[in-house]
């Protein structure tokens, strides 16, 4: 299973990159970026999986003494939380940029924003 999710994660990453690099519409690029991020998150979570493990929260099913044998790796789960929030912040800022860019030239085509070059 973990191979499947890892591979899917990679595919989503590449799909996201494809979207960023081929869509000239800025909003689509941002969506591509979100897809790229999501792929990363899938990869992170896949790496945390331990065969037969469960969520790293102790309760009646997983006692404090047997946690070591029953849970999946909690570290990537903590990391993915951070990564998601960062991705959220970046996406929000990109959207704000998109609004401003649209306001400036009434266009969302990345090709219209080439005033700076060479």
């Amino acid at each position, binding site marked *: 299973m973990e191979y499947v999710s890892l591979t899917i994660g990679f595919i989503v990453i590449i799909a996201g990159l494809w979207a960023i*690099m081929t869509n*000239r519409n800025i909003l689509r690029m941002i969506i591509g*970026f979100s897809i790229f991020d999501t792929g990363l998150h899938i990869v992170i979570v896949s*790496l945390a999986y331990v065969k037969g493990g469960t969520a790293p929260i102790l309760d009646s099913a997983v006692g404090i003494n047997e946690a070591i044998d029953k849970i999946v790796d909690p570290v*990537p789960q903590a990391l993915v939380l951070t990564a998601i929030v960062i991705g959220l912040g970046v996406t929000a*800022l990109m959207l704000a940029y998109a609004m401003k860019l649209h306001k400036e030239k009434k266009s969302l085509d990345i090709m219209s924003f080439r005033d700076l070059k060479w």
Partner: protein
Amino acid sequence: MISPIHIISIGLGTAFALGFLNKKSNGLAVSLMLVAIALMAAVSSSWFIKLYQGAEAIEVYTAGFKPPYSINLRMGLNEALLSSLINLAGFLGGLYMFKNLKNTGKHAIMVFLVFVMGLNVIILTRDAFNLFVFMEVVSIATAGLIILIQDGKSIQAGFKYMIATGIIAGIFLLGIIFAYYFSGSLNIDDISNSNLLAFKGGSVAVLMIIVSVVLELKPFPANGWALDVYEASDPGIAALISAASATAMYFVLFKLMPIADLQWYKIISTAGLITFVGSNLFGLKQTGARRLLGYSSIGQLGLLMTILGLKPFLGDKFEYIAITILISHYLAKAGLFWIAGLLKKDKLKDWALLRKKPLFLVLFGTFVFSLIGFPPFPSFFGKWELIMSLSQQGLYFTLAMILTGSFLEGIYLFRWLGYAIKMESNESWTFKLEWNKVIPPVLFGILVYLAGYYSSTFAENFNGLYFIALAFILIIYLLDFLPAAVKNILSILSLALVSWYMLPGLYSEDMLRFIFTLIFLVGGILTFIAGFAYKGKREGFYPVALLMYAGLAIIIRASTTLEFFFGWELMTAGSYFLIIRGKKSMAHGLSYMLFSMAGAYAILAAFGLSFAETASIQLSSLAAVGGNITVIFSLLAIGFMTKTASLGLHIWLPGAHAEAESDVSPMVSAILLKAGVFGLMILMIAMGNNPEATRVAYVLGWLGALTALVGNLAAAFQEDAKRLLAYSSISQLGYILFALAMMSHLGWMTAMVYSINHFLYKSILFLTIGAVVLKVGTHYMYKMGGLIKNMPLAFIAVLIGIIALAGVPPLSGFAGKWLFYNAVIDKHWYFQGVIVFFSGIIAFLYLFKLIYSVFLGQLKDNLRHVKDISIWFAIPIYILIIGLMIFSAKPDLVLKPLGEMISVWYPNAGLSWEGGLATAPYGYWNGTGVMITIGIMFMALLGWLLLLSSKAVKVGQFNIVYSAEAPQRPETTHVSYNIYAGYNKALGWMVAPKITEFWDTMSDWAHSLAEYGRRLYSGNGQVYTTYVLAYIIAFYLIMIF
């Protein structure tokens, strides 16, 4: 001590607390932010002081758990230094942007504060994922700061930046998470210990981590987004991005490199090298200041990256090299961006406005010179060590590329400096200077000098006393408000003091150095006397003139190659400013600087090669070089020949000398050129006896002969008196080169006599012609004429000068010629000798023209009331004439001890002296006797003429009836206009500006290459992401093959 973790508490706490303030207290908010940054700076700098005094580095564990279980921060010496630098830049940057921040409001202030705090954490943290988080903090804060000015361009730049860094950060995260999976830890030290490179997946993880940090350092060509950021954001922000962010990211790469291996170091160094050269090449075509600074920043980062990549080869020198270059870049780039913000002009050509505020012009020059690595700045010492280490390791290609990149950088930076100093500008400085925008660049300007001094204390065998000279120059600069006469006296006194201190010891020990000191310093004093003729303040003249003389004195006193190079570069810098002071000198100043820089790099490379072989930087160790002698000898010769303006390297000279001020022309001609001669002599003394060097010297001999011919021929065709003298200098230096290259006793004697003569008569001629030009207001000889009665003093001086130059008895020029023929016969260089002989005849053509068309013939109507030259010019001229007479009459005073000294190296075939009578293998000569004989003959002839003159009929100027119409171009009727048209038809092809065309073509090629290449940066943010990804792939391909 306050724990470094509280840098975070202070920064974030204040940022959060700023939210309580209302809209009206924005000023308070900025002040609070500055207080917070100052506190952060206090924490980091107090750690720096403590660690510098030898305390152990400390680790801070968060949450009370040891790593890898929790995140740890490390405060070591490097961390403390860099975070202090970042906080300092943050503080000054915040001060600089006080108004912008205040107007934008508290939210922008928070972002600024968090930006500085985030950079600190990036430096301190030892946890890979934490590093990622705070890199994102900084990158988002940067995206926010870019749009502080909120214009369309900055928004576009910010978006490109976000997309590019978003992808880079994603790749970085991917690398980290796999590093965790493979190594079981997020701590950087654990990751580096777990040998990820042992298997394929691990290597890819390492690749992703390293390549994304490299991409954050904006490597060429995946850096279009970064250029836009530099160009579009507020200069205050660009200063921080260039100084502070780059410093932090560089340290991140340094911190992460241990996870990789030697192969990776090599890749990094190559990537850096490509960036350094590529970025500086493209910089050539830039016309906007901020984008240009962007290219330069990226170039410098490339250089730093190369240095990091070379770490395994540089050994314990690495830190010194990296820190000196990093600090130079940090101070200079921030300073330049700040100045750019003050000036509010983006076009390079509009920077001429800057000279309305001399303080900023000085700062601008300081930063430019420190970027390129001139002394006394830290990067000079860093580059020196770098070149030495590279040649020791045999990394010649890297060495050559680094010098090429620096040279390219020099082209555009000096062109820009030239615009600021010389470009036409009618604008006036209308806007007010606010103190908060003045303090930061001024402070960084001071710091870069202090850092330079401090760096020099680490250099081996370097005499810190040389900084006293620089301090004196600084004092003179600070006294610039005084009238010129006062500064003139001070300058003369200082040169006199140095001569007094240096000359007596040298007379008994080292005749060679004695003579050159005489030429450099006493010559300096004499030319300064002429300076009394100038009224007003003559702002900026004295510091730069003294800088040149300080450099000249240092190359005489230098005992190591480092000291020599230090002096050489100071002299170059000083003379550059002297030359560019001339009226139309912008282009000439630049070409002088570029030839000098290329020459200096040749010298530097040669010193490096010699160090690699002999493991010593003593000048005397040049003699011990064996293996690479041809290369070293040639490089040094080329380097010195850029100063002697030998054929091919001479195109800077005519314009530079002709356009210079009247008393500067002799400084840069009679005196400065001798530095090249001195260098050549040092070189030949050290290596001359080696048969391989002799082969190179043979080529130099030919070069000297041809230079003599072409120089004289070109001089004959000039209409401009100063240009004529300038070409004549080229040719005279060709004689000297030829004589030196003979490498025999008589050859060297000839060279010395020529050097002394050239100094004497070229000073006389340039001073006199310069003084005449000051009076008549034109350089062109056909606009003069008949001045003999108005200017008898000038006439006599020029007459004596040309007699000496022509080598006609009785003056010392004849002594030179006599020695020369003896030497040529002795050496059997007949064919070259004939060329030189022939060019000596051509000299008569232009010398005749000089005296005839200026002083004889018809007096021009508008010059009817011209007075004789200024007394202040006449004094040094006649002192020099007296010197010339003494040297002509009693040459043995100098030549005897000189001969004794030369016989140390060339014991055979010297002169033998009996009183004033010198005997050479092919003849004898008595200076005193010749003088007396010719004197008697001259008197007799003069008496005869006077006797006859009573019979002559005087014809007044208007005693003829003019007929026909006035010609359209009256100057063409002047007898000396195009006087040698016939010769020009026959021989003109030899002086056709082929060589100038050659260099122009080279320059055109470089510029077209830059123009073509920079189209890579199409402006499309999407394309830039493609580059980023392609860059990663390229690294991967390099890694697997």
